[in-house]
């Protein structure tokens, strides 16, 4: 057995060109240092699933040409405005977009974690979100009468990738209340995690921490990346870097500015 705790580049090895990669929403621990490393490696043709939304992470990957298909319910920079690379990629048709709605993605991951082929979900009927999705079905509730309901196929991404406060030496990862990360790991074939720090105890033996812990059983690799969610936030640890997000929004509004951003903050490995 190889060591579960390894360097960032080693940890990211399972994320291959063309794979289906799942990442969490912008406020749940986005692995931004890892994302910059993937861009430096020149990853491409990704099918990115942002569970259920994304901000800078999806925008950077789109702008750097890493994404072929994007499956999510929204991409924006929140208070910092529209996501410029996402917007221009959709308008120019350079990324295949699978528009969805937040609970649909959660339900599809929950189907995968249960090992069942689909999950029903309320809502959606009569929307263009449903009309655009040929992979979804409407059936009549077999336990009801004249009660149409949408079925969504299970989603098992090749790799789930997120950033968390800490892991122990066995690769157990503390995620706290960001429990959709646990569902993501249950659903994904492999899970790669970056953490702020290594915890010296055994998270599974600590009664106050174990309920918020993803067992190492599901984890392929862990890399230590202090401030690994920067410039996004890590709940309970640090807030979003507002000045940096404003700078990104300003630069990425034009292709030259985005190239300048990539050079300064991704290729030259500059961090806060």
């Amino acid at each position, binding site marked *: 057995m190889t060591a579960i705790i390894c360097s960032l580049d080693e940890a990211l090895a399972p994320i291959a060109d063309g794979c289906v990669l799942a990442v969490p929403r912008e406020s*749940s621990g986005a692995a931004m240092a890892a994302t910059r490393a993937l861009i430096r490696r020149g990853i491409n043709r990704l099918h990115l699933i942002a569970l259920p939304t994304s901000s800078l992470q999806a925008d950077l990957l789109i702008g750097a040409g890493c994404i072929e298909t994007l499956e999510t319910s929204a991409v924006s920079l929140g208070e910092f405005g529209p996501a410029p690379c996402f917007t221009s990629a959709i308008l120019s048709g350079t990324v295949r977009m699978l528009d969805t709605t937040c609970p649909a993605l959660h339900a599809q991951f929950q189907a995968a974690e249960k090992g069942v082929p689909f999950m029903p979900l309320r809502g*959606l009927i009569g929307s263009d979100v449903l009309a655009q999705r040929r992979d979804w079905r409407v059936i009549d509730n077999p336990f009801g009468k004249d009660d149409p309901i949408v079925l969504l196929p299970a989603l098992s991404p090749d790799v789930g990738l997120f950033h968390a406060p800490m892991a122990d030496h066995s690769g157990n990862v503390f995620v706290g209340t960001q429990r959709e990360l646990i569902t993501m790991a249950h659903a994904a074939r492999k899970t790669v995690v970056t953490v702020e720090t290594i915890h010296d105890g055994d998270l599974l033996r600590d009664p106050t921490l174990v309920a918020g812990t993803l067992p190492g059983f599901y984890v392929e690799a862990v890399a230590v990346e202090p401030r690994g969610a920067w410039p996004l936030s890590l709940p309970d640890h640090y807030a979003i870097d507002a000045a940096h997000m404003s700078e990104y929004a300003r630069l990425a509004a034009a292709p030259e500015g985005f190239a300048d951003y990539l050079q300064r903050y991704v290729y030259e490995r500059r961090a806060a």
Partner: protein
Amino acid sequence: MYAMSVGAASPIPATAALLARERGGGRPYVSLLGSRAHTFFTDGARELFDCAGQGRVDVFFLSGGQIDGAGNINLVSIGDYARPKARFPGSFGSAYLYYVVPKVILFRVEHSRRTLVPKVDFVSAPGGSADHVFRPGGPIALVTSLCLFAFDRQHRRFRLQSVHPGHSVDEVIENTGFAFDQPAYIPVTPAPSTETLRLMRSRVAPMLAEVYPQFAQSVFGATACAR
């Protein structure tokens, strides 16, 4: 237990929900998406949707790049979906929450014929559904910078409820792209009381700064504090 939940990019609804909780002495339960300090959820990002699916979330807020007179909202794109002229962030949870939350309050600051249209180009979520479709939820109102509309679910139409101070019914008609009902008497929206303003400025604004630092700073000049 009464619960109000606030989604993404919703600083004005967040202000309203926190204000309601301040006035109610800690109730209703309030959950702001993206907040650690102001949420009652512990089961991750999916709990809001599971909770709402059971009917446990009473109030939610939605907006739209376009909103039409039947209460349909568009959070996706303008023009043909395959070749859009403009793109918005996406539907978020609207294609579900609009159906299952009993009181959805629509908000759109920009009141113009560009935003309030006869028919949306993309239906992120419809204002109403066929009788046999499970639909306990839907819109009850639309708040803009000019006025408050109430929504009549049976006829799927808006009715002008009140016009904000300093604006007129003609101005509302002039800037609204859809037809709506106009009662004979349309009152002026009451301005907030001194006590309401005090609560917003002293109590609510610092709480907002956790999730909406820019909004809290620009509107109230407030920075983050603990609850």
